[in-house]
């Protein structure tokens, strides 16, 4: 198991290297404009561009440039480890900005995940136990609505109804809990969580329903009933155990993907998270910031994959890693 985890961690490194290489190529090599000109301001002189190039190492061969970039990430730079570099637009260190934004994204993603699990899984279970009942049809109608309603539509509609018209909830923006207290933070997060969670809740409800219906038809469920277990125990202990295991996998991957930034939700609700930052950086041509966000997102996805595989070995005794 330990050997397996180490081997997988090495693969995470390799994956990240490949991703940095691709990202580097896309942003530093492919664009027709020289990144140094981008940084040097509105009316750059020849000397200024040359100076910028020298400072950022852009005058060196491409391979050396990329090597330096990778070296800074893994070994740290003048601002410490990991070396996330320097922002072209604010002309300051990137790390504190990125971590601050990552924290906001984490709060958004985790809160939404709790919400969609609390909503999606029970709906899925109830639907599966009474397939084709009125509840089931209603729930699956909700699920269809959920998966097919885009966040950029639902977000503004909710803001309009609950903030502008009814005034039940505050508008957009992020209010850190440490500074404004729990309620202010919480009430500002309700709508972003709901909007982000809806599509996932719908998807999880459908998946739970499908898995549980399939599981309840298994022979070992018949055995559990034949033993004389209560129906409650048959469903909760024997049915759900099998039906929810694949959902753990999906949850890991979804969370991993969301931690790299929920771009649309963050933009609609003006949360200064990682996804929002990625968009800003692309518009301002802040190359190192784009690279950093990409690498962080890639790290979360690859790492979540690893975590899911390891967790699976504990959930399903048939799975063994060597």
């Amino acid at each position, binding site marked *: 198991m330990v050997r397996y985890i180490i081997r997988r961690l090495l693969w995470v490194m390799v994956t990240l290297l490949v991703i940095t290489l691709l990202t580097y190529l896309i942003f530093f090599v492919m664009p027709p404009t020289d990144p140094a000109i981008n940084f040097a301001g509105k009316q750059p002189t020849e000397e200024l561009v040359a100076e910028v190039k020298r400072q950022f190492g852009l005058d060196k061969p491409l391979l050396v440039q990329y090597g330096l970039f990778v070296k800074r990430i893994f070994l740290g730079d003048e601002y410490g480890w990991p070396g996330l570099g320097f922002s072209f637009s604010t002309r300051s260190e990137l790390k504190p900005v990125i971590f601050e934004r990552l924290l906001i994204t984490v709060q958004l993603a985790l809160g939404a995940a709790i919400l969609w699990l609390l909503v999606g899984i029970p709906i899925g279970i109830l639907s599966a136990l009474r397939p084709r009942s009125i509840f089931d049809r209603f729930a699956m109608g909700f699920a269809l609505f959920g998966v097919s309603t885009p966040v950029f539509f639902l977000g503004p509609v909710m803001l309009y109804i609950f903030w502008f018209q009814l005034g039940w909830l505050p508008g957009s923006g992020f209010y850190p809990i440490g500074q404004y207290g729990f309620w202010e933070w919480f009430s500002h997060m309700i709508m972003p969580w709901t909007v982000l969670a809806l599509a996932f809740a719908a998807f999880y409800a459908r998946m739970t329903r499908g898995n549980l219906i399939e599981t309840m038809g298994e022979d*070992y469920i018949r055995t559990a009933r*034949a033993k*004389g*277990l209560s129906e409650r125990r048959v469903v909760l202990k024997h049915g759900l155990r099998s039906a929810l295991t694949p959902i753990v996998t999906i949850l890991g991957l979804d969370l991993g993907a969301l931690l790299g930034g929920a771009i649309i939700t963050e933009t609609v609700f003006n949360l200064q998270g990682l996804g929002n930052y990625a968009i800003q950086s692309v518009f301002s041509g802040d190359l190192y910031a784009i690279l950093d966000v990409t690498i962080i997102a890639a790290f979360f996805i690859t790492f979540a994959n690893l975590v899911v595989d390891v967790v699976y070995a504990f959930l399903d*005794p048939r799975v063994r890693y060597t």
Partner: protein
Amino acid sequence: MPEPLLQVNDLKVHFPTDDGLVKAVDGVSFQVMPGETLGVVGESGSGKSVSFLTVMGLITTKQAIIEGEVIFKGQDLLQIPQEEMRHVRGEKISMIFQDPMTSLHPFYKVGSQIGEAIRAHQKVSKKEAFDQAVEMLQRVGIPKPEERANQYPHEFSGGMRQRAMIAMALSLNPDLLIADEPTTALDVTVQAQILDLIDRLREEFNASIVIITHDLGVVAEHCDHLQVMYAGKIVETGTADDIYYHPHHPYAWGLLGSITRLDEEQRERLRPIKGLPPSLIFVPPGCAFHPRCPYAFDKCRVDVPELLPVDGQHAAACHLPLADKQRIFAEEVAAR
């Protein structure tokens, strides 16, 4: 004559489907005496499993239209509430299934799955239940039971899993064990072991046993009584000797004709029963077997034959005159 342990009277189990009413079991009556082994033989879809799943309360009025009586120890199981039925199931009547590969939960240890059955009916600690499970595993002939109880089903072979299922089924010392095709999914050598085990345990636990099978050859020597089912009805019933040596129904002849015999030189090919089991939605009029029966005559296409006694407990549902049956059996079936 002692009271039967299980008395089923005119049981009907019909499933409403989009295509029509599936008459899986259509008026079946039989009894199981204490300590006896009953073999129920028939092709897939003859209603043999459905009858006993209904007896177990695993098919309920939620899924099917159920009529008739299932009297177990003087109590009609079709009338008692769900919660009471739950205590009959597993404790008084238990069941093992065809495919031991899929009948155990893949995520739980074998010992705790057996322990769970014990704890569903007895107030014992997890530890005590587990110890009892280990003891049961030993009684069904699983070597190193302590070690095995801590393993998961995928670490067991097919035969071992079926033994574990039997251990689970017998852990509460039930009065009746229903074995639904217990050997179908197993290797031939393992089949014999499992049937011998069931025989031995019947005496040890003093339980009645029902073996459901499609293979007449497998069960004949393990059963006291046999009943042959076709299209949801019993077409012949009697002692194992009656059915094996003096069968009266052409379907039973057909089943006998499809047994492989290794003790004799193979003179000719096996004789499969021609055709397919009938649709249970549009059951053929008259005798349901008539489209496949080489001896069918006009009456068979119109009148449903009743299960009429031949002699003693032997009864068959066939319109052929007795003399013809004896002649055909002697000339065409037994002579093979």
